[in-house]
Structures are given as C-alpha cells and as structure tokens.
C-alpha cells in the first residue's frame, strides 16, 4: 500500500518537472535563434524595474564605496574618477598619435576611409557590472532615449571597451572586449599585419588569431615590420563597413608561444583598458549619421 502511494505521488510529481523543463528548453531554443517578442519583453521588464534599481543602487553607494576601499571614499572617489578619466583620455590621444604616425593613417586618408574623429559619441557612466557569473558585461546609464543603439562601439579614454549588445530607454548593456566569443579586427602597430583579437574565458586576456603573416618575436635590432615586440600595441583596423572605427588602441602584446606541432603561434594580448575598473565610457555613434 505504501509502495503504491509512493508510486502514485511520484507519477504526480513528474508532469510538473516535465512541463517546466520542456517550457524552458523551448524558450532557450526560441531566444537562441532570436525573437523580437522576447527582446521586447526584456526591454519592458528592464524599463519597468530601472527606477527601482536606480534607487537601490544609489542607496547602496555608501556600502559600495567602503567595499571599494577607503582611498576612493566619497568625494575623493569622484575626484579620482575625474582624474582617471582625464589621464585615460590623454593616454588615448598619445596612443592614437602613435597610430596616426604610421603609414596606415596616410593610406586611410588616401582611401577616404572614416576615422574615429568622424564619430561623435555619448558619455556614459558605468552603473553596474554583470548580474550573473558567466557574462563579461557592464550596464551604463545612457540608453535609447539618448540615441544609443545596438552594436555601437564603446571606448574609454585609453582604448576600446566593447560594444552595445542590449538597449533599454534609459540604460545599455555593453559586452566587454575580453568576453568569450567577442572578436575585433586589429592590426599590429609595427608591422601593420592584420588579425582578429578574440576574448577568452576568465583570464582577462585576449588572443590574436588569423594574422595575415606569422611573425616571430623581435630579436635585438630587428626591423619592426618583420617581427612583433612584447608591449607592442594593436589598433582596430581600417576596413570598409567595419564594426569599429579605425586606430582605436585595443590591447598590447603580452607574449607569443608556439608549441611543436601547432600551425599557428598563440599570441596573448592584454586589453589596454582596465575592464574591471571602468567608471566613464563614451558610446560612439558609429557609423555616423
């Protein structure tokens, strides 16, 4: 009798689990293929909760400041953020000058390709990081109401940060350049060889793949266009209809390793922007209106 009741109870339990599992799998499949309905549901939910999130975030600010550290508490933190922004901007200008100084800048002008100077932008503040453990995203406080659109590039003063991957009326989600699956066309500073810088999981670095020509690490007195150096910068490439404006500093070469039997060397890059400590960013209107 006891056995019969347990079987009966088990039989009653199964449909609940089965129904929710099937429903979840159907939703995952639909969303993975892209669905306007789900996207608008997401936008509506985020818009609806945004005011509450904003209040909670503001209320939590003092606690966050303590966690961030005594040095960045209160007004000192604001001042610090402002100074960091200015320093980063100046560093970025310096790095861009290095790019413009190379032959590529002249060729771009000859070909009449658009440059970063052609892109206007919206300044935004990072309000929070990713709400789960598997994303490399940040939320910024400017959205569609300020003209922010999907896929627009996002920069900090000293380099590329990522691109906009979700927009609500008042906020936008920015996927960071070191997120797994993120790729950006780049060129090396010295040789101008082009390739793709891809995000890697977890270790806050990127990998440079598909280089147009395999380059060794430079020996002493080697010509810059025949090899690569540790610390050498990589910039976004200039191609027609590119996702990013050309000559934005992206990362610097950390190391190059090639194991026996591998066809391609593994080139590791370190993003120039400290992606775990971003306060202000600029969302570029790219391609421009």
């Amino acid at each position, binding site marked *: 009798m006891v056995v019969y009741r347990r079987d009966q109870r088990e039989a009653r*339990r199964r449909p609940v*689990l089965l129904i929710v599992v099937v429903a979840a799998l159907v*939703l*995952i499949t639909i969303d993975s293929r892209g669905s306007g309905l789900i996207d608008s549901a997401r936008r509506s939910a985020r818009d609806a909760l945004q005011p509450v999130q904003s209040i909670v975030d503001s209320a*939590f600010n003092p606690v966050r400041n303590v*966690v961030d550290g005594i040095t960045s508490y209160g007004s000192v933190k604001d001042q610090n953020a402002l100074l960091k922004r200015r320093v980063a901007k100046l560093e970025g200008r310096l790095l861009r000058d290095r790019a413009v100084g190379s032959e590529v800048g002249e060729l771009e002008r000859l070909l009449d390709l658009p440059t970063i100077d052609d892109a206007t932008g919206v300044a935004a503040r990072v309000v*929070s990081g990713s709400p789960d*453990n*598997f994303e490399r995203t940040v939320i910024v406080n400017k959205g569609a109401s300020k003209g922010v659109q999907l896929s627009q590039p996002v920069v900090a003063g000293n380099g590329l940060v990522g691109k906009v991957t979700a927009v609500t009326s008042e906020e936008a989600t920015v996927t960071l350049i070191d997120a797994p699956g993120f790729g950006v066309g780049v060129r090396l500073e010295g040789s101008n060889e082009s390739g793709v810088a891809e995000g890697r999981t977890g270790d806050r670095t990127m990998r440079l793949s598909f280089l147009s020509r395999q380059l060794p690490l430079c020996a002493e007195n080697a010509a810059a266009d025949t090899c690569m150096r540790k610390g050498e910068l990589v910039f976004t490439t200039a191609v027609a209809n590119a996702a990013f404006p050309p000559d934005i500093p992206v990362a610097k070469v950390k190391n190059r390793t090639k194991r026996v039997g591998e066809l391609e060397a593994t080139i590791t890059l370190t993003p120039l922007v400290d992606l775990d400590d971003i306060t202000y960013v600029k969302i570029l209107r790219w391609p421009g209106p």
Partner: protein
Amino acid sequence: MVRRVRLVLLVVSLVVLQTTAFTHLRIFGAIPDLCLVATVAIAYEEGPERAALFGFLSGLFLDLFLSSPLGLSALSQAVVGYGVGAFQGAMLRESRTMPAFLSAGAGLLGGAIFALVGAVAGEAGYLTGTSLRVIIVAAIYDAVVALPVFAFARWANHDPEIGYSRRR
C-alpha cells in the same frame, strides 16, 4: 493571496539586489544566485513540485535581466528546486546548518546545469576551467547568503491566515 503577493515581492527584491548591489560585491569574480537560494528555501518548506514551479518562474524573471538565453536560469532553478525538494523530503533529520549545505549543493548543481545547457545552446566560454572555479566560489557564496535569504523566503511563503504550508 497575501502569500502570492509576498512571493512576488520576494522574487522582485532578490532580482533587484542581484542586478544592483551584488554586482559590486564579487568575490573572485563570482556573485551568489539569490533566486536559486530562495528556490532552495521554498523546496525546503514546500517540497519538489512547488519548488520546481517557483524556481521556473523566478528564474524566468531573472533571465529577463541577463544576456544569456531566456529560460536558462528557469531551467536550472526548476531542476534544482525539484531535486532539493525530493532530497529534503527523504531526509530523516533536519539541522541548522542544513540551509547552507543545501544552498551550496544547489549552487554547484544549478551552476553546472546553467553552464552545460548554455554551452549546448551555443554560448561561448561556458564550459571551461574558469567556469568551474566560478561555479564553486558562487556555491560557497550561496551558502553564505543562505541564512538571510531563507528568512526572507520563509516570511514570503508564510500565509498569515493558515500559517506555513508544508505539502510534501
């Protein structure tokens, strides 16, 4: 009716906390899954069926604020809620440390399901050594926040008119 309103308040509050305050409280790159811990609390009180349903609905609401495919948290939380409810129902003795242990176990299972199904759905970088580390740290974090989340979930699940309902 009061209980349902409280449960909605519980889910909305936890999602708001997870998407605001806890994004700044990362430990070794991990944050706790508050809705998952609440699902464990409901499983502890109500058993597998209601926990699966609560986990599905709360996970679905959380999914609206994530970039991962909609339904991924719903799936992992529903399965974990059902599993914890069934496991808890089979246990002979309860203890004070049980919520923390259950939350940690649920965090490991939920994280594994999330990563595995996410990878199958085509999300890049979900099945890596780093993901494993993050899942383990997040599970420990789940255990740390279990006490206040359990208290909140018990309050939400309490109907002032009929008291707690343990329908297992």
